[in-house]
């Protein structure tokens, strides 16, 4: 699958950052990393544009859902935001914050692949 998507990965845990960023790169995404929700928001405040954001829930300084609310409030309504968490009750928090999808950890290639393809299709249309 060819892709020139720009992905922002927001994840405070080193292991998850490694695995998720590798997964995104498998789908030929350019991956930018943020270690918490505040860095996530700052990326958007600095004028960066992303095609997809993959965001953890519980992080220091600012949580994923808090960051997503702020990003959507900034007007970044087109970017696909996927919440990921090992917390089984995280879906509600992500979706009410404005995420498009929620995936319980661990993320799998067969789940991420179709999401990436969906973003590519929307970008091409």
């Amino acid at each position: 699958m060819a892709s020139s998507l720009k992905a922002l990965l927001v994840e405070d845990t080193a292991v998850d950052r490694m695995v998720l960023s590798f997964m995104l790169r498998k789908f030929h995404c350019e991956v930018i990393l943020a270690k918490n929700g505040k860095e996530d928001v700052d990326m958007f405040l600095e004028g960066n544009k992303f095609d997809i954001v993959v965001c953890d829930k519980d992080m220091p300084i600012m949580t994923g859902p808090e960051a997503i609310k702020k990003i959507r409030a900034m007007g970044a309504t087109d970017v696909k935001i996927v919440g990921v968490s090992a917390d089984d009750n995280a879906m509600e928090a992500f979706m009410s914050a404005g995420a498009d999808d929620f995936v319980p950890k661990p993320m799998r290639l067969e789940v991420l692949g179709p999401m990436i393809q969906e973003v590519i299709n929307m970008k091409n249309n």
Partner: protein
Amino acid sequence: MGHLDEQFRQVEDLQDEASPNFVEEVVVVFFKDSGRLISNLEQALEKYPRDFNRWDAYMQQLKGSCSSIGASRMKNECMSFRDNCGQRSVEGCMGSLQKLKREHAILRQKLESYFQLLRQVGPAGAATRPAM
């Protein structure tokens, strides 16, 4: 139940010629992080007695890492600990933590042996993963 589930295979599938040591690098980071989290939790158990929310937060993070590399037995002990937090059982939490530490040590040993074996057999032999 084995020590590793299908997710470990997913991590192995990410390894390629450009990153031939990816799996081992992830595992090294996992044990560094998990060791730190377990140590922080042990300190929290002492410093913040009955602070189940705080204890749970540490374990939540560890559970996530365990899920990401497929450390299934460790993940189950994380869940057991969190259940004990929910039931506000100090004794239960202590018991789960001891089991978690045992599984952590066993998994580390098994993976060290696994990577040692992989280095001996080389890339061709890596096609068949020994059961763990």
